[in-house]
């Protein structure tokens, strides 16, 4: 059992994000409030107004403008932060491409919330999964602690590879749930994450332009550089996660395995479903079943090589998606099928569950895992589980 740390506080995921932004000494915050991420924006606005956080808070009229302001600020070399959810992230879409294409290390906390209509404020990951191809790195957190730790790591990684990073936490299951979180000492964070010194930035004394027009051939080169930066990021993510572990006692990587040794079936998760899935895996292991868990921490860059290594002894994957790509199925399942193409011994089953806050219980995961072990699921389609289906 882990020991309870004296320095821990019982705080919500949203509060963990606020503390992380403050610890990262962000210089500019531009944001527009939207449930369930509003408390992040309100708290940061308060802290700036009270002078407790030496940052410029730019109130804007929309999420599109929030990201536009972040882009402008980041181009001057400032460490820049924003937070949003769902419709807000969708409204940012154009500028997510713009910020990644401009190679700006902006960090965005997205509190995962389903998209409307029908109108809902509850959790799923379709909002972030549908921004998969914008050039942003994407982290999916399991706990409020991981939210705090990931924001700090995100700045390190982003500023090294010059790609923006989206730190995702499931709406309400993390954002509004209070749990123990260790808050690191600011001086230690300063050692881990020194101030940002950009290689290129807007400077009136040394004029440069960002994002000008370009011909087809160099455009191709710019895009290839982004792809290479994503590939390079994988190594940085692992090294930064290990360094974080040495300094703060909690290590992180591209993915995480739980009781995966000799597992014939791996349950694949992202985000806050993972904790409940760990309980299910323990229950199935107690019944003598060789079941483990693979948690995806980074969706982009997608750790295809690490996934192939992790599943080398498994026969079945059960991918739990809290998102769907209509006309195809579970988004995460597609990623796994693409990464594992040609490994014919593997059967990959896709489950779509928990959309729009539909409950996901340990029992549901256990039952569907048993069906996957018995191969009574159809591998050619996604199975929908829960809600009123």
């Amino acid at each position, binding site marked *: 059992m882990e020991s309870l740390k004296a320095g821990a506080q019982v705080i919500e995921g949203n509060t963990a994000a606020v503390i992380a932004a403050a610890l990262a000494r962000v210089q500019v915050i531009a944001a527009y409030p939207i449930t369930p991420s509003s408390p992040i924006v309100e708290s940061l606005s308060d802290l700036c107004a009270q002078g407790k956080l030496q940052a410029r808070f730019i109130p804007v009229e929309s999420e599109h403008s929030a990201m536009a302001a972040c882009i402008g600020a980041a181009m001057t070399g400032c460490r820049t932060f924003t937070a949003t959810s769902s419709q807000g992230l969708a409204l940012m879409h154009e500028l997510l491409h713009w910020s990644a294409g401009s190679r700006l290390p902006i960090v965005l906390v997205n509190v995962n919330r389903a998209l409307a209509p029908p109108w809902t*404020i509850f959790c799923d990951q379709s909002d972030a999964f549908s921004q998969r191809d914008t050039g942003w790195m994407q982290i999916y957190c399991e706990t409020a602690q991981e939210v705090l730790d990931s924001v700090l790591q995100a700045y390190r990684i982003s500023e090294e590879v010059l790609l923006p990073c989206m730190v995702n936490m499931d709406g309400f*299951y993390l954002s*509004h749930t*209070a*749990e123990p979180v260790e808050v690191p000492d600011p001086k230690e964070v300063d050692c881990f994450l020194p101030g940002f010194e950009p290689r290129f930035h807007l400077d009136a004394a040394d004029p440069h332009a960002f994002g000008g027009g370009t011909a087809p051939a160099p455009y191709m080169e710019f895009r290839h550089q982004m792809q290479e930066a994503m590939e390079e990021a994988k190594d940085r993510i692992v090294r930064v996660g290990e360094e974080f572990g040495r300094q703060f006692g909690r290590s992180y990587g591209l993915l995480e395995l739980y009781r995966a040794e000799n597992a014939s079936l791996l349950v694949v998760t992202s985000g806050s*479903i993972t904790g409940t899935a760990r309980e299910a895996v323990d229950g199935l292991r107690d019944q003598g079943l060789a079941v483990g868990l693979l948690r995806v921490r980074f969706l982009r860059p997608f750790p295809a090589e690490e996934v192939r290594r992790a599943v080398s002894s498994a026969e079945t994957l059960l991918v739990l998606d809290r998102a769907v790509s209509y006309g195809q199925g579970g988004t995460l399942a597609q990623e796994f099928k693409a990464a594992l193409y040609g490994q014919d011994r593997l059967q990959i089953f896709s489950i779509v569950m928990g959309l729009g806050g539909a409950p996901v*219980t340990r029992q549901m995961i256990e039952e569907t895992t048993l069906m996957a072990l018995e191969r009574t699921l159809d591998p050619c389609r996604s199975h929908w589980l829960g809600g009123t289906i």
Partner: protein
Amino acid sequence: MWEIRFHGRGGQGAVIASKILASALFREGLYTQAFPSFGAERRGAPVAAFLRADRAPIRVRGEMAGADHLLILDVSLLALPDLLKGYRESGWIIINSPCAPLDLGFPLHYRVATVDADRIAWGLELGSRAFPIVNTAILGAFARASGLVSVECLNDAMNPFISVKPERNRKAIRQAYEEANLSAPRPFEVEPCAQG
């Protein structure tokens, strides 16, 4: 694992109470997880909050089907059909009521504690006459009945959550602790129930 459910009306402070208790139980050495019934909250409408506490880190998420303890901040909520749903009879039902526990019509073997939290809140000018804020008083009564948490830990845990009238809220905790009416003697130790 202990599972604790709070029922109140918007404005009484049930959600804040769940966070204070989560922080206090953490100070007592337990891992905790507290969350409200998700969605919009409206003044006067029924709200619920949930709290898990365990000796091991808590991994499971989502709403709880059962409850070892129930903290009911408004006695009129007893009219709701599902209010006691999932109640495990080894735990306590804490109710804001001037009545004696046995006068509330529960089965005789239920462990019920009452405290006149409205009167305590009015006396200490917590909230208004129409909307007394009774969350700290109900926690004091819970401390007395359950023995899971001390008044001192509740006082310490209150700080980041209650910035208005902290001294009066401390008094409310203490007064409710002393005035709570228990239907049964407190067991020597309340055993944790099986995980839900």
